[in-house]
């Protein structure tokens, strides 16, 4: 199946950015293991990418695939809200349905 594609936009290597990355990795490893691809974009290095995506706030996490497009803003310190915000339940449900788990 198609992997979940996540893009995380941060502004510089600040403590907040580091914390956000750590939070996201934790969530992914726990709930989305093997199902995702994560790309981290530093806006200070590639501001044009932020312009294209019209990012205002950082950190911003964007999920485009599978649709629908979803944005979650903040340091992702609340895992339930992140999963809810990314609207991943259909994907996860279908995976469970295939009998990946006993």
């Amino acid at each position: 199946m198609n992997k979940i594609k996540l893009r995380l936009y941060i502004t510089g290597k600040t403590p907040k950015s580091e914390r956000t990355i750590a939070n996201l990795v934790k969530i992914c490893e726990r709930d989305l293991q093997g199902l995702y691809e994560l790309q981290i974009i530093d806006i200070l290095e590639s501001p044009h990418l932020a312009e294209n995506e019209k990012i205002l706030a950082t950190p911003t996490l964007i999920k485009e695939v599978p649709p629908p497009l979803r944005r979650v803003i903040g340091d992702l310190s609340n895992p339930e809200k992140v999963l809810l915000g990314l609207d991943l339940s259909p994907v996860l449900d279908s995976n469970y349905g295939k009998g990946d788990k006993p």
Partner: protein
Amino acid sequence: MNEIERSTGIEKIETGIKGFDMISEGGLPKGRTTLIAGTSGSGKTIFAVQFLSEGIIKKDEPGVFVTFEESPEDIRKNVISLGWDVAKWEQEGKWAFVDASPVVGEDHIIAGEYDLGALLARIEYAVERVGATRISMDSLGSIFARFSDAGLVRNEIFKIAGIVKQMGVTTIITAERTEEYGDVARFGIEQFVADNVIILRNALEAEKRRRTMEILKFRGTGHQKGEYPFTVTKDTGIVAIPLSGFYMKQHSSTIRISSGNPELDKMCGGGFFRDSIILVSGPTGCGKTMLSAGFAADAARNGDRALILAFEEGREQLFRNAAGWGIDFEQMENDNILKVVCRYPEADILEDHLILIKSIIRDFHPHRVVVDSLSALERVSTVKGFREFVIALTSFIKQQQVAGLFTSTTGEFMGGTSVTEAHISTITDTIILLRYVEMFGEVRRGITAIKMLGSMHEKDIREFYIDGKGMHIGKPFSNVTGILSGHLVFTSRKEMDRIGDLLK
């Protein structure tokens, strides 16, 4: 020494917005942030766009436009009719958008702490990319609506304002107001963002819209106080109309010009002054248009150019009437010594009439200007707006060393004054009154000059009549008083002589 000098004066940059640089005494404070607050439809976005456009057109200074509300596509479309080709400037690298407008489906969920660092990074990037010296941000209300934490947004905007200040960029930020006269802006923005605040108003006054701008504060530097009318015109955008800025500065001439009627010249002590404003007041049909036509035709006889702005009669009617008095307007126009512009007063708001009149005068360079009638224009304006219009027009005309003749229609047939006179009589140099006089069952006409600044003039009220050749001024009315008030009192010759004897 240099250090002290530098820290005492605040430099300003000319915005290029017509009239505004005069009101602001040189433009916006350089390298600072100015808040433009106004209700919806007050012209904030146009001001923001024009600030950048004029910078590019007049000074080749690139700019960055941060839009929180309209999409860049909408802005490009909306301002092209004002003559600003934003897309072209983008290609030339003189204009950069930071698109912070809402996107459909952009709803987000907040999960933890965040800031607007991305917005700041994008603004910095855009400023560096085009080498901007001007930034416009339009408008703040929209971003407050999208992030629930108003305190955080306020802090972030404050941070952005501080950083662009460090970059030496002159910035304007627009913000909404809910009332024309109330708090400066919503969300308490003005308290932390701006050293400088300008308010744009679009108030409804006597069923008419009136746009004004007011500089509320410029920290550490001067500006004109109070509200100034402005208008938004098709090719130039915002044009402010500064009043006190130039009034009273004219120097006057002692050269006389003819009124077109030798007898009237005599009454006025040898004619009108070359750069004076003459008001001709009288009831309808009394000869005002004839007098002004004669005034314009006299210019032509001397090889001078005349401009007639007619707000009461159509072109054909005016030309036909003039032909009846032996004046060939058609030929004069062909010779390019006359220009007749006929317009309905209702066709525009007064501010736009003013802009148009000014541009015609600038292009045509007339020596004489006739406005027939001023009272027709009064119909389409508020009392205050009309007075401002007259002041602006007269001072402009005087600056150009042009003689202006305005007509004004009185409401009553006998005697009386018009509202127009009450408002502008102090601004005019000469006032000529035309009046109907009812005598022994006949309606006759009287003329008098009641004011002639800087010169002697006759005090008599003289009788005049109109025939196929025009206006003929005769003798003074002798044994009658009360013509101007409309309440005639006849006195016999004997009585007059007796009073005369008493005073000897």
